[in-house]
C-alpha cells in the first residue's frame, strides 16, 4: 500500500533511505507547502469573506458611536443595529471607493483614480508575489522577498540616479540592475540550500536582516546617496530612468503595471510550458522522484531562488522607478511579507497571484480613504490580511465555519482523525483509503478491476 501519490514518504523504507531527520522534516515542509498552495478557490474566497466579517467586528469594536449605542443595547437594540449598519456601510463603502471607483469624486478623473491607485500598489506585490509563488511551487518557502526587494530597489534606484544615459536605455538598465540585485540575494540562499542543505527559511530571514542593515549603511554613504543632505534618503531617480506614466499627470499609474502583466505571463509560461518549470515543479512536488528521474536537484534548487529573487528584485525596481523615485530605509515597507500573502491567496498560480496582488493593492489603496474618511484605523487592513492568511493556512477552519466537506471528498474529520494522528498508526489505512477514494472518484471501476 505504498501507491498513493498523495501521501509520499511515510514508509520506513523511505525514511531510512532519506538522510536523517532533517531530510524528513524538509519533506514534511514541502508537503505542507504543497497543501498551502493547493487550497481550493472556494476556500480562498471564503477566507476573504471571513476576513471581512472579522474586520467588521473590529471596526464596530473600535467605533465610539457603536460603543455608545451598545451601552444601552438591551434598552434599545435597534439603535445599536442601525449605528452598526451605518458604520460598516461607511467603512466598507469608503474602502471600495478608495480602491475601485469613487462615485462621490469631484471629477471623472478623480472617480477612476482609485482603481489606478490599486494598480500602482499592486505592481510590487504582484512581481514579488510571483517570486514567492515560484518558490512555493518548487517546495521552497522563500521568506526572503523583503531582502530581495530591497536589493532590487537599491540597485535599480542607484543605477537610476548615478548614471546618465539616454531615455530608453537608462530605464532598461536600471530594471536589469534590479533583477540582478534581487537574483543575487535570492541566489545566495539558493546556492546555500542546494550546496549545503541549509534551510532556506532561516537563510532568507537572515538575508532580510542583512539587506535592511546594508541599506541603512548605504544611506549613510555620500557616494551612494548623492545628496547634499545628511538625511538617510537618496537622491531622486533621473527622469530618463523613470517608468513612464501610463495615464499622464494626475495619475501615478506607470509602466510597471505592464511589466507585472508581462511577468505574470512569463511565469505562467515558465512553470507550465518550459522544461525549467517542469524541473521546478518536479523538485517541489517530489524531490526524490525528480532526482531518480535524473533532474539535477541541486542546480534546479539554486535556480528557483535565483528566479524568485529576480522577480522580487524587479518588483523593488518597479517600485522605485515607477512610484517612489527615492531610496529610503523603509523602501520595501512590508512588501516582502505581503507578497507571501499574495502568493498564498493566489494559490501559487500566476493568474491567481496577479489577482491577489490586485486585491491586496486594493485593500491598501482603499484603506487610505477608509482611514481618512471614517477614522477607521488602517490597522484593520492588516487584520484583514492576517485573517486571510490564517484562514488559508488552516483550510479545515474555513470548512468547519461553512460546513463544507473535506477537499478530498472525505467527510469532515471528527475526533477520530485526531486520535489517528495521536496514535500515529493509521498510515497504511489512510493511504489505503486515500488511494481507493481517489481511484473510485476518477474512474468508474475500482482499483482491483482496473488493474486487470
Amino acid at each position: 500500500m505504498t501507491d498513493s501519490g498523495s501521501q509520499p514518504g511515510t514508509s520506513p523504507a523511505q525514511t531510512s533511505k532519506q538522510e536523517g531527520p532533517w531530510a524528513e522534516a524538509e519533506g514534511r515542509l514541502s508537503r505542507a507547502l504543497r497543501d498551502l498552495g493547493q487550497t481550493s478557490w472556494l476556500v480562498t474566497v471564503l477566507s476573504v469573506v471571513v476576513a471581512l466579517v472579522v474586520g467588521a467586528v473590529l471596526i464596530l469594536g473600535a467605533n465610539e458611536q457603536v460603543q455608545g449605542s451598545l451601552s444601552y443595547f438591551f434598552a434599545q437594540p435597534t439603535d445599536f443595529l442601525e449605528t452598526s449598519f451605518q458604520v460598516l456601510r461607511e467603512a466598507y463603502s469608503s474602502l471600495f471607493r478608495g480602491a475601485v471607483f469613487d462615485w462621490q469624486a469631484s471629477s471623472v478623473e478623480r472617480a477612476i483614480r482609485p482603481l489606478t491607485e490599486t494598480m500602482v500598489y499592486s505592481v510590487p506585490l504582484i512581481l514579488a508575489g510571483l517570486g514567492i509563488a515560484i518558490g512555493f511551487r518548487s517546495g521552497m518557502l522563500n521568506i526572503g522577498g523583503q531582502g530581495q526587494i530591497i536589493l532590487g530597489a537599491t540597485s535599480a534606484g542607484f543605477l537610476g540616479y548615478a548614471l546618465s544615459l539616454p531615455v530608453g536605455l537608462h530605464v532598461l538598465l536600471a530594471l536589469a540592475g534590479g533583477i540582478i540585485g534581487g537574483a543575487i540575494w535570492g541566489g545566495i540562499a539558493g546556492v546555500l540550500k542546494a550546496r549545503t542543505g541549509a534551510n532556506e527559511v532561516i537563510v532568507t530571514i537572515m538575508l532580510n536582516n542583512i539587506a535592511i542593515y546594508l541599506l541603512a549603511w548605504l544611506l549613510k554613504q555620500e557616494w551612494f546617496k548623492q545628496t547634499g543632505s545628511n538625511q538617510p534618503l537618496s537622491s531622486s531617480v533621473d527622469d530618463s530612468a523613470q517608468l513612464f506614466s501610463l495615464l499622464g499627470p494626475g495619475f501615478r499609474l506607470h509602466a510597471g503595471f505592464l511589466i507585472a502583466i508581462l511577468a505574470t505571463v512569463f511565469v505562467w509560461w515558465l512553470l507550465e510550458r518550459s522544461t525549467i518549470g517542469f524541473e521546478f515543479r518536479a523538485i517541489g512536488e517530489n524531490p526524490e522522484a525528480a532526482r531518480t528521474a535524473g533532474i539535477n536537484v541541486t542546480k534546479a534548487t539554486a535556480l528557483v531562488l535565483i528566479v524568485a529573487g529576480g522577480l522580487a528584485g524587479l518588483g523593488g525596481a518597479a517600485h522605485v522607478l515607477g512610484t517612489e523615485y527615492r531610496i529610503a530605509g523603509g523602501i520595501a515597507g512590508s512588501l516582502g511579507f505581503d507578497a507571501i500573502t499574495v502568493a498564498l491567496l493566489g494559490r501559487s498560480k500566476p493568474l491567481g497571484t496577479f489577482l491577489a496582488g490586485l486585491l491586496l493593492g486594493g485593500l491598501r489603496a482603499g484603506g487610505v480613504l477608509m482611514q481618512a474618511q471614517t477614522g477607521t484605523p488602517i490597522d484593520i487592513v492588516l487584520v484583514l490580511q492576517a485573517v486571510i492568511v490564517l484562514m488559508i493556512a488552516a483550510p479545515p477552519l474555513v470548512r468547519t465555519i461553512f460546513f463544507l466537506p473535506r477537499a478530498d471528498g472525505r467527510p469532515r474529520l471528527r475526533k477520530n482523525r485526531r486520535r489517528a494522528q495521536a496514535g500515529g498508526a493509521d498510515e497504511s489505512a489512510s493511504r489505503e483509503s486515500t488511494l481507493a477514494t481517489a481511484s473510485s472518484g476518477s474512474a468508474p471501476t475500482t482499483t482491483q478491476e482496473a488493474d486487470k
Partner: protein
Amino acid sequence: MKLELRGVTKRFGSFTANDRISLTVEPGEIHALLGENGAGKSTLMNTIYGLYAPDEGEIRLDDEPVSFNGPGDAVAAGIGMVHQHFMLIPVFTVTESVALGYEPTRAAGIMDMKQAREKVLEISGRFGFDVDPDARIEDLPVGAQQRVEIIKALSRDAKVLILDEPTAVLTPQETDELITIMGQLRDSGTSIVFITHKLREVRAVADRITVIRRGAVVGETTPKSTETELAGLMVGREVNLTTAKEPAVPGDVSFSVQGLTVLSPMDKVVVDNVDLEVRRGEILVIAGVDGNGQSELAQAILGIREPVAGRILLDDQDLAPLSVKQRLAAGLGFVPEDRSTDGVIGAFTVTENYVLDMYDTAPYAGGPGNVALRLPVMRKAAQTQAERFDVRMGSVDAPISTLSGGNQQKVVLAREMSRDLRLFVASQPTRGLDVGSIEFVHRTVIEERDKGTPCVIVSTELDEALNLADRIAVMYRGRIVGIVPVTTSRDVLGLMMAGVPLEEAKQQAATHHTMLSEADEMAEAEENK
C-alpha cells in the same frame, strides 16, 4: 477473549472501506484476515483498535458491545496491536520501549523502571523470547524488535492480539519463529488476528481464514483450502501464481559490478565489495530481506548514490563519470523501489509522469536549448504507451495519484521501456501491487529479457524471486552470500537470506525443515491425492 464484529461499516466520503463486515474470533484462535492490498484490512483493524469509529455495526468483546474513543480504550479493554511498521524509538532500551505510554510509576511520579524490567523478563521468559531488556532497539534484529512489540502488547494484558502484516520484514526463518510464538500465544488463550496477503503463511498458521475483497467479506474458510482457491477468493477470479516463461538464452556478459562498496550517510558500509555479472537476455534477481543493501546497490547503479570503491561497467563503459541523466540516456531503464516517493510525482499528470526522465529531450521538448515543452507530443506519446501497457485511467491529464498502484507502476514501466534499453534495473517492482498487476509486471520484465536486455531485479519476496529469476544472488548485510540457480530450495534460500553460506545452508536445510515448507509439502501431497 472472544472478539466479534457485527456488520461493521466504515465509509470515507463516498467510498466504503468496510462494508458490513462480520467476523468472530474465538478465544485461543488464530484468525487470518486475508486480502489484497487495498481490500480494507487495515481500516478494519484500525477500527477495532479505536483509531476509527465505525459508521455502522458494533464490536463485541466477550458478547459485550464496546465502543472505543481511541487506542487507549482499546488497550484497556485488552486489545493489542503490532503494526507493520514498528512504533519503536530506536534509542530506547527494550524496557523503556515497553514502558513507553504505560509508565508504571511509584509515588511522586517516579518511573518504576525496575517493575517494567521485571515485566519484560517475565513475559520474555514465559514464551522463550530471549530478549535482553537492556538492549537498545536499534541494535536488535527486526525479528527481535517485533517481539518487543508483542511483549509491549502483552504487558498491557492484551487478550486479543492484532498482527498487521507481521512477516513482511522477516526472513523465512524469522517467520518460522514468529509462527511458533503465535502458536504459544494461542495455547495460552490469546486470540490472534493475523493480517496478511501471503497465502502460504495463512495456510501454515491460521485456524480459520476470513477473506475480504473490496471492503466486504467474500468467504470464510479453513487452512485446508489450496493456495489457488485462496488466491481466487482474494482476487475474485482465477489467477496464475506463476508466470510462464521460456528458458533464458543468455548472451555475453554486458553488465558487471566489480568490488562495489557504498557507505550510508552515517558512514556505515551498506554495500560491501559486491561483484555481479549479468548477461544479455538474463534476469538476475537480488534476493534478501529488506534493508540488506539491495536498495543502495540499485541506487548506486542509477547514480544517485556515489560508491566509495568499485566499478560499474555497462558494455565495457565505466558509468562512474556519468550523471543520472546521462546514465538514463545511455540506455538504463530504472524502476525505483518506492513508487510513490521515487517513481512518480503524485500531483503530476499521467503525461508528465510519463516523460519524467525525458521531458527535456526531443521530441518532447523544442525551441532553443530544448527549453519549451511540447505538450501535444507528450500527451500523444503518453496516450499511445498507456494503451500499449493497458493503463486504466480517466485521462492522461489526470494526476497520477488518482490511479491505482498497479496502474501507476504500469506508467513507470511504460516510461522506462519506451527507450531502447541496454540495461534494466528494477527495485521491488511489485511491492504493494495486486495479483493482476504483479502478473503484468512479471510478463513485461520477461519480455524485456527476451529482447536481449540484461535485467537486474531486486526483490524481497522469495516467491517473486523464484518466479522471475534465471539466477538468484542472495544479499545479506551488504554482501553477496551466494549466487545460485533458480532451482535452489526455499529453505536454502531462506537460510542464505539470514547470512548462512550456501554449503552450510544446504546441510542445515537437509536436516531441518521450516514449518512453511512442511505445510507446502502437505499441501502438495493433498493436491496429488
